[in-house]
């Protein structure tokens, strides 16, 4: 290299300010932001910033400000801390339900505009006050923000609670054939627990699926890769019958057919494979006939619950499993545009067909 250029570079370096520096130890990395709607339509914005100072007693800083928008809160939050607050390591966004009911689009727009915010940041709904949830410290779990994040991350990896990231939320919002969803968490005394999945129509929160039904939603919404699922075939007093599938792989297919009058009929085929490691009941797993009966029972059970759930979604006019995309793809563009999809959706015939298979049933017969 020519000897002059390094000198030139150094001169230029003097010209370049240090404004753009984010030196680690002087920076506060927002981990989780909570949004609450106040009665006066202002926002209460909470911020959880992990602290890496070995001398400090706490391992995080929780800040709070009341502002008109999320960016408006920034100066108020910055005033409370010695660190430079940045969003590049943001992991989780916590919205309170009342806020979500009013629509999240404004927040989402701001968030996706900021190039430092990762598209993989999680969208989570909070039962009750989001800030209080974030602020509370749980004895057995250091750093509530990280606790929530790892909880959701683990759930997402087992696919019981669907993952909702900023990218997915906005993508589903803009896609006309599907509606976004987001998990709901709540404070359960000593722990935090997932209390359901919120269903959106557009950017507005409409209703929720209860935790017990989450695996049905998961089956309907995507292909599972290694989920666990327990199916209660019967539970009346003493008499219990249940079957648990482990490492369940499922394949979902949606077909749109036309009935005689030309109305679309949606068929959802779910084919699932799993190993059964728990079965409580009278049938024998090693007998072919028994196994078939059992699988039929379980499949019918799943089908009825799935159809129930779809009915529930239709009643609420939320298309959380993306039927719209398939209906759309089955018709011409012009007729899709003319269609009032949510009206059509509410009266759509949707049928479910579940095909369960046992890969193995463990070590014993």
């Amino acid at each position, binding site marked *: 290299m020519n000897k002059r*250029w390094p000198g*030139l*570079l150094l001169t*230029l370096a003097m*010209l*370049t*300010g240090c*404004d*753009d520096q984010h030196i680690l130890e002087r920076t506060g990395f927002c981990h989780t932001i909570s949004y609450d709607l106040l009665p006066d339509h202002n926002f209460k914005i909470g911020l959880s910033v992990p602290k890496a100072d070995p001398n400090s007693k706490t391992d995080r800083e929780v800040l709070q400000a009341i502002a008109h928008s999320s960016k408006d809160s920034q100066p108020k939050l910055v005033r409370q801390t010695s660190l430079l607050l940045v969003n*590049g390591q943001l992991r989780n966004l916590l919205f309170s339900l009342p806020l979500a009911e009013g629509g999240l689009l404004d927040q989402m727009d701001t968030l996706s505009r900021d*190039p*430092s915010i*990762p*598209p*993989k940041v999680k969208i989570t709904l909070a039962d009750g006050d989001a800030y209080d949830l974030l602020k509370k410290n749980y004895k057995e779990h250091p750093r509530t923000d990280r606790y929530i994040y790892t909880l959701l991350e683990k759930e997402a990896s087992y696919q019981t609670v669907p993952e909702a990231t900023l*990218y997915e939320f*906005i*993508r*589903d*919002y*803009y*896609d*006309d*054939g599907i509606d976004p969803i987001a998990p709901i968490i709540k404070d359960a005394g000593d722990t935090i627990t997932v209390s359901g999945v919120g269903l959106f129509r557009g950017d507005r929160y409409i209703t929720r699926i209860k935790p017990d039904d989450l695996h049905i939603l998961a089956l309907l919404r995507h292909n599972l890769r290694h989920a666990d699922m327990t199916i209660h075939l019967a539970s009346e007093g003493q008499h219990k019958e249940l079957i648990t599938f482990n490492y369940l792989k499922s394949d979902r297919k949606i077909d749109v057919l036309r009935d005689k009058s030309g109305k679309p009929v949606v068929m959802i085929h779910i084919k699932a494979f799993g190993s059964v490691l728990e079965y409580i009941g009278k049938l024998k797993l090693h007998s072919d006939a028994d196994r078939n009966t059992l699988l039929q029972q379980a499949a019918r059970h799943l089908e009825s619950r799935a159809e129930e759930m779809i009915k529930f979604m239709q009643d609420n006019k939320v298309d959380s499993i*993306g039927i719209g*995309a*398939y209906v*759309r*793809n089955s018709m*011409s*563009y012009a007729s899709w545009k003319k269609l009032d999809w949510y009206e059509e959706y509410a009266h759509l015939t949707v049928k479910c067909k579940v095909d369960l298979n046992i890969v193995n049933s463990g070590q014993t017969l």
Partner: protein
Amino acid sequence: MKEKLSAFHATILIYMTQVGVFSFSLPRMLAQHFGTNGWLAIFIMAAFVFLNTAIIAVVYRLSKGNSVFETLERSIPKIVLYPIYLFLCCFWVTIGCLAAKEYIFIFQIIAFPSTHPMIFMFIFCVLAYLLINQGIYNIAKVSTVFYIITVWILFLFFFYYHDFKWTRLTPFIFQGGSPDKIKGFFDVYPAFLGYELVILLFPYSDKKTHLMRTAFISCGLVTIVYAFIAFVSFGFFSLGYLKVLQYPILVLFAYVHLPLIERIENLLYGFLLFTTMITTVMNSWAAVEVGKRMFPKLKNAVLSFLIMLFGYVISFIPEVLMEAQRWLHYAAYIETGLAFGFPIALILLLLIQRSRGELQP
């Protein structure tokens, strides 16, 4: 010029000239203008690119690989040519520097928002100057290395396999875009520009280069790469999301999540400096080639210095990203016209010369 370009180098050189800042916003522009399955429009545009390349091939055939400037100077007096030369010289360096400026503006969205862009621009111009000074053969060599360093980025697109959904592509073709498809065509077409500079490479190639064949190959390569990128974007984002994303490619990169490094768009965008660098360098090199015709006595180093200086000064004008984009768009319209018009004019000129018997058989 001692050495002639080899076929491989010429292909990569043209390819690297074509791929530049336009590709960052390409999927969005396709979505905006062409709507559903807009990535198919790439192939329509490719047809025009090939047509244009074929026109240049005719020039190559007719002029027997001689420099186009010699062809011009044979029949047109220098007085008439001078303003044309001056325009071409200034225009090409402007395009090169505007592309660089836009690259820097986009970079500043991600990092260094408060540093003055002209400082980056200065370094960029210095590097470009150093490269131009080394001559076309070395530019080709360097672009090959740049190509090898950047080409693996394409493999990252397989990372989106899990989030890619065919249903999102929809079966509709070109629905829901803007009604003015002609404008859309001209807005997206500049993504391919760069191949027209092949007209200046005539004197640096010989029979073994198969110059026109390499131009076709590199256009084909660009078509495939663009179609692939756009295709992945359409299946990864939904159409509606794609329409509102400024630079979808950056969001795609940001989504990549490796165990040791996250948010690799910070790193990858730096790598894309290489492709932009070649775009700028080739355009400025074209300007220098024209400049040499005007001032044959000036030393090459001085000439390229003056031209880069001019480019640097010009790039002061757009002060914000939108302006740079708008300027670059206008310049690209002219360049598109030039890409078609210049070779057609040359063909006419060559035919006249041939009918007059001025060309040696």
